[in-house]
Each structure stands twice: as structure tokens, then as C-alpha cells.
């Protein structure tokens, strides 16, 4: 009896991780943050949740089917030509994943940091700053994933995904959402005012419009192409497009690497910043 009680104590649980690498910032309980978000889900703003999802769907309807009739077929970089709706569907799926991930990792996190004092309370427990960062990022990524799955449920039956291999776009969406959530939270943790937060919106819109979403990148001069290729949404779109149109080649690995770096650096900066904000 006594032994069982002692094993389950908070102290015993924490000491299991003692002396491990990173034990000053990580207790291995980031999923408890997801538990918290699930508990808080009841009080969330469902309209905002839904609007983030329907936005890309509206773009698909108006551009893909409306404008698509005028445009006809499209081909990029010598690949087989596809209908305009088929061409923009992967881009909009990538955007869905991004939207979902960004909403929770920016505005929601900003609120919790500056008004809720929630992280103060959490970091007084045996949780570490990396637990909080990772947990919040995973939650944001789940939302991005949900948007991407929802979008897939619309475009697949419509025949906009030529091959079944195109369903691999969903795991790719996890990577994309993870990257944006991680990066979004890192940036948010440095923001000090609502004005600065507005910059997020200000950057998101042009990135959405010009990242090869609605037309191939080769309409731009080559220097501009290089700039755009460095943007995360371009990377996301061209990864999803390759997967959904069945063009599997080595360039996919570069996209994956891009997001792995984005995830890792986002986590490092967020953890550092949370430590600086709440422990200094």
C-alpha cells in the first residue's frame, strides 16, 4: 500500500526523469496541455473555428470552379496538364493546414500569455517550458490537421485528387501544420502588443496570394521566384501539389527537411522565450 502510494506521488513521477538530457525544461508531459485544451474546448469560439475552415473551401468554389471555366487546363514545369480546380486544390489544402495551426498558436497563445496568466500557473508545477511549448503546438497542429482532413473530404469525392497516393497529403499536412504552429508560437512569444499581432495577418494574406497558390511560379522574374521559394507556404504548397498530382521525386525530401528545421527552431525559440518570460 505504502509503496504504491509513494510510486504514484508527484515527486516519484518527477524523479523518474532526473538527470536526463533536457530535464530542466522537459518533464515528458506535453500531452497534458492537449488535455487542458480539450477541457477548455467548450468555451471556445465555434464561429472562429468554423470560419477558418470554410475560407479555403470558398476559394475552391469560386476560383476552382468559377474562374477555372475561363482558365482551362494548367501545367507547371512540363508536367501533365490538369484542370484548374485540380491545380489549386493542393494549395488550398496546404493553406487549410496553415490556417488551423496559425490560429491556435498565435491569437490563443497571445491571450494566454498576456491576459490569462495561465502559463505562470503551469510553470509553477513540475511541467517544464518545453512541455508547455510542445503541448500548445501539438494542439494547434491538431486543428490544422482537422482542417486538412475536412478539406480532403471535400476534394477527394469531387475527383480532384487523381491518384489514391494523393491521400499522403494528410501526413504531409501534419508536417505543415506542425511547422506553422511551431513557428507561429515562437513569433507570438516575442510579440508585445496587439499592433504587432496584426503583422501576422498582414503577412499571411500576401503569402497566401503569391505563393504559387493560383498560378505557376514561372510568371515571376527569377529573383522573385527565389524569394517566394524561401517562404514556408510555398514549400507547403509545392509539397502538397507534388503529392496530390503524383510527382514523387527527391525534391519532396527538401520540403520535408524545410519543415523539420522550421519545427525544431520554433520549439527552441519558444522554449527559450517562455523560460525568459516566466522564469526570469
Amino acid at each position, binding site marked *: 500500500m505504502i509503496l504504491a502510494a509513494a510510486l504514484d506521488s*508527484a515527486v516519484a513521477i518527477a524523479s523518474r526523469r532526473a538527470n536526463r538530457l533536457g530535464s530542466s525544461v522537459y518533464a515528458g508531459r506535453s500531452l497534458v496541455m492537449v488535455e487542458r485544451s480539450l477541457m477548455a474546448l467548450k468555451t471556445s469560439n465555434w464561429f472562429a473555428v468554423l470560419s477558418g475552415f470554410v475560407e479555403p473551401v470558398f476559394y475552391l468554389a469560386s476560383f476552382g470552379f468559377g474562374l477555372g471555366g475561363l482558365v482551362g487546363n494548367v501545367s507547371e514545369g512540363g508536367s501533365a496538364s490538369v484542370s484548374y480546380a485540380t491545380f489549386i486544390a493542393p494549395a488550398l489544402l496546404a493553406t487549410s493546414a496553415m490556417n488551423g495551426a496559425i490560429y491556435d498558436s498565435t491569437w490563443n497563445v497571445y491571450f494566454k500569455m498576456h491576459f*490569462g496568466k495561465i502559463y505562470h500557473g503551469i*510553470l509553477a508545477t*513540475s511541467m517544464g517550458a518545453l512541455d508547455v511549448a510542445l503541448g500548445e503546438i501539438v494542439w494547434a497542429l491538431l486543428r490544422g490537421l482537422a482542417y486538412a482532413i475536412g478539406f480532403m473530404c471535400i476534394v477527394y469525392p469531387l475527383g480532384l485528387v487523381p491518384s489514391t497516393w494523393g491521400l499522403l497529403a494528410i501526413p504531409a499536412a501534419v508536417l505543415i501544420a506542425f511547422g506553422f504552429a511551431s513557428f507561429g508560437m515562437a513569433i507570438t512569444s516575442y510579440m508585445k502588443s496587439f499592433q504587432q499581432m496584426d503583422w501576422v495577418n498582414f503577412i499571411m494574406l500576401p503569402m497566401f496570394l503569391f505563393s504559387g497558390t493560383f498560378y505557376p511560379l514561372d510568371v515571376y522574374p527569377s529573383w522573385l521566384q527565389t524569394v517566394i521559394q524561401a517562404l514556408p507556404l510555398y514549400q507547403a504548397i509545392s509539397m502538397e501539389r507534388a503529392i496530390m498530382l503524383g510527382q514523387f521525386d527527391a525534391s519532396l525530401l527538401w520540403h520535408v527537411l524545410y519543415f523539420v528545421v522550421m519545427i525544431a527552431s520554433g520549439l527552441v525559440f519558444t522554449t527559450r522565450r517562455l523560460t525568459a518570460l516566466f522564469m526570469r
Partner: protein
Amino acid sequence: MISGVKSTNNAMGRLLHLMSDSQLHNGVPSMISARNLTKEYGDFTAVDHISFEVPRGEAFGLLGPNGAGKSTTMRMIAATLARTDGELAILGKEPNAQGPEIRAHLGVVPQQDNLDSELKVHENLMIYGRYFGLSRKFLKGKIDELLDFAQLQDKRDSKVNELSGGMKRRLTIARALINEPEILMLDEPTTGLDPQARHILWDRLFRLKELGVTLILTTHYMDEAEQLCDRLIVMDKGRIMAEGTPANLIREYSSREVLEVRFGSNKNAEVAEQIQGIGERIDVLPDRILVYAESGEGALEELTRRGLEPLTSLVRRSSLEDVFLRLTGRSLVE
């Protein structure tokens, strides 16, 4: 019944801990040890090279005027604020490197409540326990026990924002107990509580102390400090002004008794001259004069012998408040 069985187990669990503890100072295991502990914010030194030890099971108080550095010290001990300089060990562990491990031993009641306003009352307790990695099964029983203690059973499904200030305070205190901490850190725990809740808390703290829990406490209520603290430090401007048991501090910095006399505010200064020499020390305040003496009655007799007739007079025992005011001054200098 069930909670009775549980707390027996806890007591024995703590006993086992105690026996296996290797951190010994003069034969008593030291829970907290600070040497030249310092916190600077830019050019400003909030905590200035303070040193103290807290043995296991002690109730240790931090007193001091606003801005003295109490909360800053508390947060460094709680491993939620990095120190600038000095040494600090909690249960022999180093807060910068072993933060999560240290915090598993602690229950923290911060000066300002930071409850999760997106969650209900019982959810606040549940998720807090989960942050420590405790199982839902264990927490279910624990939450019931804590809601009883905080007298919030009928509010268990309320939102946090629907609670009164005192209820929020009680919930914060209950939350701090969720992991059955060995060290309980209370930063002005009873501010905002009504007298009933205050006495219930004192009673609970006494019982925790009996179980071997170490209490670290700040308060602006001197009666509370006198009641609860085995030993305390008085801080001012980031430094320790005095250290000792309440009784010792009173003996050292005040007299046994205090005579308070009023002559009307315009006569105070003039009378003060004639009082010189009575008792050990005299304090002239705008509305009254305090005479510190071994015997208050004796001082009063001496006063009348000199032909002085106060409007009102009161003899009382010296208290911690007298010590506090003597050490930290009466004016509000920031």
C-alpha cells in the same frame, strides 16, 4: 473514512522520505538553504545577498513592507524565477538545473491568483494535478477532499470568474495541495479572506505542519505570523533586518509591555518632552504616544506622578507589530 486512510499513508510516506533524506544540517534535514541569494532587475537589487536555512517541518515566515523582496524570494525558492547570484538549494537540488524536480515537491500559492479562467472549479483542480502527472483516479478522490476543505463543493461546476475574490483565493490554496506537497509556499495566503476562512486555513496549516510539511509564508498580518511561524525573518529593501522566533524578536527589539496614551493631537509634542526617561523607549505618533516598558502599569504610575493626565491610556503586551514597525520604520517610503 477513505480520506482518513489516505492521510495515514501520506504521513508514513513522508516518514520514509524523512529517513532516507541525506541533507542534514546539525542533525536536522534542511529543506531550503540560501546563501547570498540575490536578484537584480537591471540596476535595481530586489533581493540583496540574503542567507537563511529552513529545516524540515518548520513554519518559516517572511515579513517586510511592500517592495521588501518577499515575493521575489518566494519565487526563487519555488524555482520559477532565476536568481542573479548566490547559492540556493531546495531539498539539496539546484533550481536552475532541476526546476521540474523541485517543483514536484512544492505547493505554491502565489500572491496573485492565476487560476485557469477557461475552466470550471473542479477542472482547475483536475488539470493542475495532471500537470504533476498524477492519475485521474487518484485526483477524483483528492478533488473531493480539497473542495470540502475549501468549502467550494456547491461551486464545483461554476466558472472561475463567477467566484468571489475570497473563493478564488480558497481555490488557489486548495490547488496548491493537490500534489500533497512537502513544502508549501504561501505568498500572503489570507489576503482577502473573511475571518472564518482565515481560521479554517490556520487550522489546516497546523495540521499539515503536524504531518511534517514545511511552510514558507509571507503575510502583512502580524497576528498571523505570530500564530503560525516558528521562526521568521524581517526583510526591508531586499535585506534581512532581523531573524528569530516571534518571542525572541519581541524580547530583542521591543519591551515586555507597551503603554499607549493620548493627550489630544496638539499636545502630544509638548508632553513628549516631559515623558522622557520613562520606560525603555518612547515613540511619538501623531495621535498617541507609545511607551515601551517592562511594566506598562508602572510607566503609567510614573506618568501620573509627573502630573500628566492622559485622555485615554491602554496597557498591552508587546507584539510582533511593534518589532516590525521598529525595524522597518513607520513612514511609507518606497
